[in-house]
């Protein structure tokens, strides 16, 4: 049934294309000079029909469901919904729908059968209405497009206008999605700060996100100070960056300047494979290999090492970031003009001196930008730390200790039975908001540096 409007649409688009094209040909064959090629006239008609009708059908399909639901519920006999909460009303609606599909549990009341019939009838009517409306709209647009065909009509620009409109729409989708995400996040965060003072959240040094389940429970006052959590994030990020930056840079320098072409053609794809490994696999690696290794090594030299250390999680995250930093640095180094290399070599610098004194400073802004992007990825990384970092928030910067991170806390807060009206759950949104702000600032800063750098050589 839903296929019919789409088939109609396709027919209308094809029809519009050929009708307009034919009309344009006729004008041409009577000896007039057309402004646009006949195929542009056809395309103009096709797009004129396609874009509005497709939008109309999609909107209809999106809004039909809720609309039909409301009509059905509004038409129930008086009194049956009195004194019921939203949850119960939803259940009744679900029951009516399953009855309408012929799935019947127990013995529903008669009014539910009536409502189910109503539901089916409404849906059928909506389907037909859609077909009629889409058909009528297509015809109207086809007629409109046909009426535009004249020798002077600038169908070429018309098509271009419609297509650039589509492209604008596509690029705006991402922006509006971001705005939507931030808006919903902000709302939940606001609700959290109504329950927990913002100063306690920002400056508190204790993170124990429990809430009393019963009124009389003892020791159940939760504490929502995010400092130990963000500190844990920073410790792990620091470990990751300390590992990833030197290794990534050295490999980029080697690949860019010293590696024989053959070796480069082997190593580069390998690095790209490393970049494509799912982070959960890195998580396994951290838990099963790195953490036990660090622990047993630490104990063998008499250190007190936690089972899930920041060092293990951060180290594996660092490995994950190596290809990221390496490819960024490789790009930055490759972007330094050949003339600068020649200049340094021509003065009698060795390759290493050229690299260190000339290429590296010239590529530095690009490299710094890449490192900052890596930092923001490390801060937002979730899977590795969920598997390999701890759960308890501690104010510590000792990498051999177990720390937790913002992302880990968000995951644990939202796992299990959650109701969206207590601070424990809402805290996750506040943490998410802070994470978003921190990485946003780092990204803006990084992009700014990278842009500045591009200007220097273009």
């Amino acid at each position, binding site marked *: 049934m839903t296929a019919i409007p789409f088939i109609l649409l396709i027919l209308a688009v094809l029809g519009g294309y050929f009708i307009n094209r034919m009309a344009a040909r006729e004008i041409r064959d009577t000896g007039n000079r057309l402004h646009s090629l006949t195929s542009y006239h056809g395309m103009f008609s096709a797009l004129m029909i396609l874009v509005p009708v497709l939008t109309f059908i999609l909107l209809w399909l999106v809004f039909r469901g809720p609309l039909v639901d409301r009509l059905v519920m509004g038409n129930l006999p008086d009194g049956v919904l009195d004194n019921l909460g939203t949850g119960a009303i939803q259940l009744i609606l679900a029951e009516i729908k399953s009855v309408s599909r012929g799935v019947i549990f127990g013995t529903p009341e008669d009014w539910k059968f009536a409502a189910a019939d109503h539901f089916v009838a409404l849906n059928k009517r909506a389907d037909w209405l859609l077909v009629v409306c889409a058909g009528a709209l297509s015809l109207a647009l086809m007629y409109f497009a046909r009426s535009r065909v004249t020798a002077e009509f600038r169908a070429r620009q018309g098509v271009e206008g419609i297509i650039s409109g589509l492209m604008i729409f596509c690029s705006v989708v991402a922006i509006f999605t971001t705005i939507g995400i931030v808006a919903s996040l902000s709302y939940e965060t606001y609700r959290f700060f109504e329950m927990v003072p913002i100063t306690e959240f920002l400056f508190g040094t204790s993170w124990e996100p429990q809430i009393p389940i019963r009124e009389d429970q003892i020791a159940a006052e939760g504490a929502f100070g995010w400092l130990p959590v963000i500190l844990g994030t920073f410790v792990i990020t620091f470990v990751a960056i300390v590992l990833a930056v030197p290794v990534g840079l050295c490999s980029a320098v080697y690949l860019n300047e010293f590696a024989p*072409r053959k070796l480069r053609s082997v190593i580069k794809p390998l690095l790209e494979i490393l970049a494509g490994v799912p982070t959960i696999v890195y998580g396994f690696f951290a838990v099963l290999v790195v953490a036990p290794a660090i622990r047993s090594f630490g104990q063998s030299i008499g250190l007190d090492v936690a089972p899930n250390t920041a060092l293990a999680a951060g180290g594996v995250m660092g490995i994950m970031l190596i290809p990221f930093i390496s490819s960024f640095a490789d790009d930055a180094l490759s972007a330094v*003009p050949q*003339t*600068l*290399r*020649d*200049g*340094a*070599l*021509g*003065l*009698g*610098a*060795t390759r290493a*001196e050229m690299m260190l*004194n*000339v290429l590296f*400073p*010239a590529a530095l802004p690009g490299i710094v930008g890449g490192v900052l992007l890596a930092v923001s990825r490390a801060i937002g990384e979730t899977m590795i730390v969920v598997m390999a970092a701890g759960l308890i928030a501690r104010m510590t910067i000792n990498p051999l200790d177990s720390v937790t991170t913002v992302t880990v806390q968000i995951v644990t807060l939202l796992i299990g039975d959650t109701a969206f009206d207590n601070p424990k759950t809402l805290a996750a949104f506040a943490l998410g908001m802070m994470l978003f702000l921190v990485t946003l600032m780092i990204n803006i800063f990084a992009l700014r540096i990278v842009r500045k750098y591009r200007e*220097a050589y273009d």
Partner: protein
Amino acid sequence: MNDMRKIERDVHMTDLKIKARGVNVHYGETHAIKDVDVDIVDKTVTAFIGPSGCGKSTFLRCLNRMNDTISICRVTGQIEIDGRDINDRAVDPVQLRAQVGMVFQKPNPFPKSIYDNIAYGPRIHGLTKSKAELDEIVEKSLRRGAIWDEVKDRLNDSGTSLSGGQQQRLCIARAIATQPEVLLMDEPCSALDPIATAQVEELIDELRRDYSVVIVTHSMQQAARVSQKTAFFHLGHLVEFNNTGEIFTNPQDSRTESYITGRIG
């Protein structure tokens, strides 16, 4: 007595600086330089002219072994500077490039301060013992590059902030700072406007007093203005090599004649 000294000076004037015999260069399968013999005299300007792609740059780059930096490039034959074979195993190409300076087609100042641009060569070669000595070399080189007056108040500005012509003179000064004996210039004026070109040409004429200069140029007028010797390359061959005046007024080879009268190019 007097005559003796005059003869001595004449010999000195025609001192051989660079002697190339049977030089061949291949880029992979491409045979870019074919059996070239050249003698380059000290304290003169030698111009390489010829249609583009004929191998002028390639040959120039043989003289300081810059072709070593291109992996597919293979150079054979004998090139001597002051009687020493530069392709000998004992010669360090890095040292050689300090001795044979190079200026490129496009001005390529490092994105460092003007001072550091000039000081780069002396620093990596350890030519100075103190900051004062380095300051002196920087000033001397900038003066020699005829750009001192324009930059003396802004030595800490970035080298890339200068105009194109200033950048090119900075690059010449940078090459001079390593105290080379030969200066190679690959179309040093092709990215410059006429006024900057005139300044650089004047500078080249100046430099002749201390260095032997080899300049690649696509402009025959420039070759005629600045050089004493001219070599005409065509399709990888050295077609004709003579005093500049001879080449332009009385070419021996028909290809040279066609080129300088504008029929091939």
